[in-house]
């Protein structure tokens, strides 16, 4: 396996990060509508895309301080407290399995020229709370097309970086590390599925899985594997970390489903952070129109 070398000058030094990160703003800048560098408070989506929710967005502070990132600790604030020195530069992603050219890529190399856009998605945690997050990223299908999986590839598996020196809880065995998640290839190719590299117009903060993480808005949040270091194209359904821990509680699909309870708590309602009253959880987290057809004929109680 060959490691693609980082260029002598970092990509971010050649292209100002803001332009590199935001195609829409780039277009506006070239058409003479330049505006000041983005700050979180000033961040506003220029146009609402077809997949964006217009629900009010969860504040940046809440999104970046209320996380489940068990590699940094199991409290909600563990990630924001313990991830400050997490090194995301340089970052290498190894692509393996049934793919035209299995090799390791430098992060900048891998995502070069992919269309970066903002997506405002609901995020429903399996624990019963939810957020609305303005992600910035690219459609996974664009990357998959570029990587050219072979006909044997039926699933995509993702792994978080394994680095116990930086991710201290990986020294403890309450979960099988590194964190593994996966998607069926058609789920991975769905236009809703993105790899996020930012939120609120800024590069992805460490607590949210810097530099790159998966976002699958119709599934429970734990499917969104963070700080991805490995992408594998495989022919068998991967055993994910949570399935491995408790197969009766966490399935491979993990589609948001108000009528299939977690064995220990109800999934019928959720608390949107910032709201007092609970709201009803929607099938496929409100994305049924875009994704339900992928599961037609499947018993979603069995394939939870």
């Amino acid at each position, binding site marked *: 396996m060959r490691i693609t070398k980082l260029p002598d000058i970092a990509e971010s030094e050649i292209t100002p990060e803001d332009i590199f990160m935001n195609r829409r703003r780039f277009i506006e800048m070239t058409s003479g509508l330049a505006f000041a560098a983005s700050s979180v408070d000033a961040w506003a989506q220029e146009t609402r895309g077809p997949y964006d929710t217009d629900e009010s967005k*969860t504040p940046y502070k*809440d999104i970046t301080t*209320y996380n489940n990132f068990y590699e940094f600790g199991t409290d*909600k604030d563990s990630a924001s407290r313990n991830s400050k020195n997490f090194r995301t530069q340089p970052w290498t992603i190894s692509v393996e399995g049934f793919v035209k050219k299995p090799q390791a890529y430098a992060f900048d190399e891998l995502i070069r020229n992919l269309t970066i856009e903002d997506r405002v998605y609901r995020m429903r945690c399996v624990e019963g*709370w939810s957020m609305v997050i303005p992600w910035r990223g690219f459609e996974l299908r664009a990357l998959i097309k570029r990587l050219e999986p072979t006909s044997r590839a039926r699933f995509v598996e993702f792994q978080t970086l394994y680095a116990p020196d930086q991710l201290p809880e990986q020294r403890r065995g309450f979960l099988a590390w590194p964190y593994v998640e996966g998607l069926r290839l058609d789920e991975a190719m769905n236009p809703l599925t993105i790899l996020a590299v930012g939120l609120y117009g800024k590069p992805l903060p460490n607590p949210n899985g810097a530099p790159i993480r998966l976002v699958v808005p119709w599934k429970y949040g734990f499917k969104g594997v963070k700080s991805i270091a490995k992408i594998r194209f495989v022919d068998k359904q991967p055993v994910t970390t949570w399935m491995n821990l408790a197969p009766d509680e966490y399935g491979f699909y993990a589609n948001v489903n108000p009528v299939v309870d977690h064995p*220990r708590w109800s999934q019928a309602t959720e608390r949107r*952070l910032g709201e007092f009253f609970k709201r009803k959880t929607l099938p496929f987290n409100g994305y049924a129109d875009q994704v339900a057809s992928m599961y037609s004929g499947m018993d979603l109680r069995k394939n939870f």
Partner: protein
Amino acid sequence: MISIRRFWRVAAFLACLTPAVWLAGLAFTGNLSANPIQDITEQTGTWTLRLILITLCVTPLRALTGWNGVIRYRRMLGLFAFFYGFLHFLTYVWLDQFFALTDIFQDVYKRPFIAAGFSSFVLMVPLAITSTKKWISRLGGRKWQLLHRLTYVSAIAAIAHYLWLVKADIRRPMAYAFLLSILLGVRVLKLLRSRRTASVVDGTEATL
């Protein structure tokens, strides 16, 4: 002038109240996390368990140190355990479920961890009611003592409640389980030993 004894009672009272005041302070100044209801639920639950365990320390501590005065704090500690349990219960019924009674009954019926927590709390109610001197004399010492052994059941149910709700890392509930097993183990040992002596000298039943 207040006596030393009274001073320590007030100090203990204030110490027990501190977590509640601290939590209320964080809540009103907006310094809880993005999910304050969850924080309040977790904090009140944790303090209930801690105070149950602290209450269970009183008798062994007395036996171990010979400090008989410690027994005077037992009722206060037990009532504070009930107080935090009540806050925890109220948080669930009011803030979390907003009095959706059918959902609550379903929760208790369908989910073992809610059932365990609910049992733990319900068992504390008769103990709180009968914690007065009047009730001790009304029931008689032995009966009262027997009734108040429900504390052990309540404590075990509280641990089960905690263990059952954790997703993966059971280190913390296991730490509490370990402490409880020591506190109950001490009592079992004492019971076994007193049985043995009782069979020899036909003495009275030991208190636990």
